[in-house]
């Protein structure tokens, strides 16, 4: 497929990190050329006729051509054949996208407003997806709340993530590096902030990372509370809505130097930010929303955090000075 390499569009298409990405780009390249020809005929023809047959006198006589069966048959039949060919080509690529290799490394993806969580079989989870290069990876995905869509431009794959059921997608990255993950199904306030990264690394590095993660996971119990809180704060993507190092307002109020301060709550008035308030706001975020911020934005973490983890988070927030 080198003959339309120029249309391979590498100038604006994202890196082709998988074999399927190359195939998709070949088809896209073909379609760009075919479309270019079609547009040249239609638009070029239009411009040529407009120039050639422009009105010269106010009583020009025009040819009376009502139809031409042969021509009409041709311009119905040729597009049909091309369209069906393109359909077949697209089907061929799609069937590869949907043919799950049997021995793939499986990772469970959990989409939620508004971050991705990647859960490995060894029992730990991560907010970035670390995978070994040249290895089939199968992602089994579900959502905790609303529809999301898992999209990796460099792999040319996308699949909606649906609450209440599992969908799947697979890829085999052939290039090392970091690749964007976007959410492409509108999911509310921070839809455009629901980003993640896929890190493709050599097998050795991946194995080391797995070991480290597993160790960290087992050590979580012995971490000091504030450090565990910091880890959870990152892992649950709290930071995408609450700033911790200055008073900048993101989606929600900043938590910097908030502990012990007063906040103005709609309909209730001034409230002191203490342990109880923080705990209530984590478990039941709509109970006391700070004035000026919308309700129903922050998800509840009821059932996702145990008492120790909540204490750890509070400890961490206390320390933001």
């Amino acid at each position: 497929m080198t003959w339309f390499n120029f249309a391979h569009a590498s100038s604006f298409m994202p890196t082709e990190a998988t074999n399927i990405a190359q195939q998709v780009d070949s088809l896209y390249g073909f379609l760009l050329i075919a479309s270019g020809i079609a547009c040249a005929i239609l638009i070029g023809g239009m411009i040529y006729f407009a120039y050639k047959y422009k009105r010269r006198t106010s009583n020009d006589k025009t040819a009376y051509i009502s139809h031409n069966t042969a021509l009409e048959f041709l311009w119905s039949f040729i597009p049909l054949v091309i369209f069906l060919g393109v359909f077949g080509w697209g089907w061929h690529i799609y069937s590869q996208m949907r043919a799950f290799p049997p021995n793939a490394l499986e990772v469970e993806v959990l989409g939620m407003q508004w971050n991705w969580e990647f859960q490995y079989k060894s029992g730990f989870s991560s907010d970035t997806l670390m995978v070994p290069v040249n290895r089939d990876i199968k992602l089994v995905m579900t959502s905790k709340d609303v529809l999301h869509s898992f999209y990796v431009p460099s792999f040319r794959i996308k699949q909606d993530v649906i609450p209440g059921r599992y969908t799947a997608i697979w890829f085999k990255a052939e290039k090392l590096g970091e690749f964007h993950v976007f959410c492409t199904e509108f999911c509310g306030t921070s839809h455009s902030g629901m980003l993640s990264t896929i890190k493709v690394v050599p097998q050795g590095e991946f194995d080391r990372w797995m070991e480290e993660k597993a160790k960290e996971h087992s050590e979580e119990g012995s971490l000091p509370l504030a450090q565990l809180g910091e880890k959870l704060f990152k892992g649950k993507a709290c930071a995408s809505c609450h700033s911790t190092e200055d008073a900048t307002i993101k989606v929600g109020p900043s938590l910097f130097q908030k502990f012990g301060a007063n906040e103005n709550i709609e309909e209730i008035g001034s409230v002191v930010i203490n342990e109880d308030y923080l705990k209530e706001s984590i478990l039941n975020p709509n109970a006391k929303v700070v004035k000026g911020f919308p309700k129903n934005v922050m998800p509840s973490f009821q059932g996702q955090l145990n008492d120790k983890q909540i204490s750890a988070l509070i400890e961490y927030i206390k320390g933001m000075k």
Partner: protein
Amino acid sequence: MAASASHSDKNYLNESSGIWSWLTTLDHKRIGIMYFISVLTFFLVGGIFALLIRLELFSPGKGLFTPDQYNQVMTYHGAIMVFMVIIPGIPAILGNFFLPLQIGAKDVAFPRLNLASWYLLMLGASMAVATMFLNKVDTGWTFYTPYSIRSSGSVVLMVIAAFIMGMSSVLTGLNFIVTVHKLRAPGMTMFRIPLFVWALYSTAILQVLATPVLGITLLLLVAERVLGVGIFDPKMGGDPVLFQHFFWFYSHPAVYIMILPAMGVISEILTTFSRKTIFGYTAIAFSSLGIAAVSFFVWGHHMFVSGQSEIAGILFSFLTMLVGVPTAIKMFNWLATLYKGSIQFQSPMLFALGFLFLFAIGGVTGIMLATIGLDVHFHDTYFVVAHFHYVMVGGTLMAIMGGFYYWFPKMFGKMYSEAAARMSFVFIFIGFNVTFFPQFILGSMGMPRRYFDYIPAYTQLNRISTVGSWMIAVGFLIGLYTIIKGLRSGAPAPANPWGSKTLEWTVTSPPPHHNFDVEPIVTAGPYEYR
């Protein structure tokens, strides 16, 4: 009511006066004008929202809005443009005015129903606008579950508004079908009706058959929010993908409700300004019907990655390719109509040629999106945004503008300033390409749609796109100026300023109250330029 009906200068505009005579009118022409005023207002509001979206996207990061405000603006832009501008656009304005005139009828079949449709649209529109002052809706115009079940906006009111506007659309369609079946003048056979009428007729079929399914979908969404019935809610064992099936069963044909009438307008303008009979009348007429029919079979191409089954996806990809054929037929037939014509570049013709240009690009990118393996990459990216704006704005809106300039002399009995109209075309056409062509590239690069913020790599193209949106705005402002100036001080228009052959040009400009003083007898086709 004016008593002196015998006066020879009487036409539909001055046969009676006062606001009440307009609000209670049963005259299809006056109802058309009322639609024109209301849709133009909605368009200005939707257009301002579009400009605000582009302004926010001028730079990555937070600009004008908070993310929630952006999502609301994006939702209202979509909902207003779809339900209140493009769907009623051509059928309700130009269709109402010219369908009876073009087939030699004195009115549409059910004039009261016609007025009721306008009031329904107004009622729905006011409810939609009311949500802007209550809890603003942020679901996108597609109302996908389960987000629309959980969202805190006034989704129920918005959805009922869409339901009511849907009823308005159904009743307009019903009216047009009966009008075309029953009210044609003597000699006006089905194969002598102008192609604009064929297009409206095909559209009307879509309106009647597809909209009820949207109706029940929206009612179920209301039930979902009020009663929690669970049909579309996975928490209750329901299926959000089924919502998408129901939604697109209407909303894909709705895309053709938007574009088919535009194609009809283009056929009228091209023949008039190349003073030549249409090439392949029957092919164009049947391709309208064909597009209408096949459009019901292809809704799932909006759902290739939605979690529907692979088999369904492949089937929909195949069926979608079939819609491409009648569309290609129309394009080639229009091109052949230009061949050996006598082409004049009045502003309606400029808009028609602009339509061909933009629709060609919209069409070929449509084929790319129909190709299932490729759509997995493009789905829900700016490629899709660019594609449907090329079809909806580059197609439908260009046709509305062209059609409006074309029929302006007939509607108001005055000529507009040709220079100003051409100027508006230049700004809209260039601005449109500057705005939306970069979005194809952004989409190829992977920028998802409905994004408040984006990664820095997308900045340059977004900037170009935003600048383009300002050019479009200037173009439409010039257009508005042209219309107002034409209405205030335009030269009186003759009955047939362009030398067209269809029936509406045989009556005075503006037409008399009852359209035809003598019932026309039709003996030939609509485009007999010999």
